[in-house]
């Protein structure tokens, strides 16, 4: 089983757009699970030291897949997120 880590970065407490993004990622993750790809969805505080050290300055909300920032400053649809995650999974094999 393939495994992907997706992180949603946003301020704490989460703002509306970050909640929306997390929902979209979770919806996409559910669909991928049916195809045998497991997606671990994490939430990371965008102004934490950890986030800054890993990714530098970002605009919220941001999405990373396997440690690579793929979007920031806007909320991609669940379809778009699904495509991104599938591509990441196909690269892994």
């Amino acid at each position, binding site marked *: 089983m393939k495994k992907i880590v997706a992180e949603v970065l946003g*301020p704490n407490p989460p703002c*509306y757009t970050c909640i929306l993004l997390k929902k979209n990622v979770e919806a996409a993750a559910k669909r991928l699970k049916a195809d045998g790809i497991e997606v671990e969805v994490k939430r990371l505080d965008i102004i934490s*030291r950890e986030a*800054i050290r*890993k990714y530098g300055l970002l605009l*919220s909300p941001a999405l990373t897949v396997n440690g690579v*920032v793929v*979007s920031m*400053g*806007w909320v991609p649809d669940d379809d778009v997120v699904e495509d991104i995650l599938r591509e990441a999974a196909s690269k892994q094999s």
Partner: protein
Amino acid sequence: MNGVRILRTGFLLGFVLAVFGSLIYSRIMAYSLAPTMKPAHFQGMSPWEIPVAYIVDYLSHGWLCLLFAFVAAGLVYEFMPKEVITRYMGSSRAMGYALGAGIAPFFTVCSCTMVPLFAGILYTGAGIGPAITFLLMAPASNILTILLTGEILSWELAIVRVIASLTTAVVAGLIISRTPWGRAIEMEHHPTGQNPQHNIQIIKLPLDERLLAALKFSLYLAKRILPYFFLGLVVVSYVEAYMAEDIVAKYLTGFSGILLASVIGGPLYTPTLVEIVLGRGLMDLGMSKGAMLSWLMGQPYDIPNMIATSRIVRWKVVVTYAVIAWIFSVSFGLTYGLLSKSL
């Protein structure tokens, strides 16, 4: 699939061009987009008629301006090269000031972007100066505020407001980066070691998806801001109808008017553009232009913003920038009032 995509791109581009075109057309025809009702119109209306009449009057003129402002804000936000900002913001001090004052404010229409970006600028090593500059500049010069100040108040005021805020923001940033407590915070967040290579590969979407995303963001902004905006209009209609002109003329003009406007402008500020509409109402009642500028510049030290930033940089810095912003708001109000002969 490709045909659908081209059709959709064409349709969305057409919509955007139509909005921009009709605004330019209204400019050429010198058609006013600001509310036209004056306090005298409200005489003889019952209390519930006043807000209805005012909002109808406002929308019949202002819908195009509002539509344009939100569409433009969405487009700017979507098509601004965000990677450029985040990559260079932390690179050097001068670059930090330039980006913090010049570009970053354009796409911080959403307050939940503002505080993280403020913290990010500080943590990534550009220092506290650029961070403060960005923070003070952001509410005064995002694309929505500029467009609406221009349309509802006057373009002269909009330009003066941007210049005044720019000066205030840069000077406040420079001063705070030289204070001992500002330096202490900078030392605390000084990046250790060299900058790591960050892994960023932003996915690019086709044009139609990006246009759609831009308009979606416009819609999101409108949904968030418009309810408060209309609530503000209701308040303004009552202010216009019941506030006696001699009270405004007495308290909101002259030097004391500037002082008063700068003090009440801050706490009243909400990131919902209400201050612009309320300003329009007060100006119709005789508020001076100088006091108006102080009123608009009072925003950087609004309370929620101060609480959020104090968690990152502590109170001493917050109080310092608030005091600097206040001094500048009063002196710019005074200067502008003297220059425009409307004190």
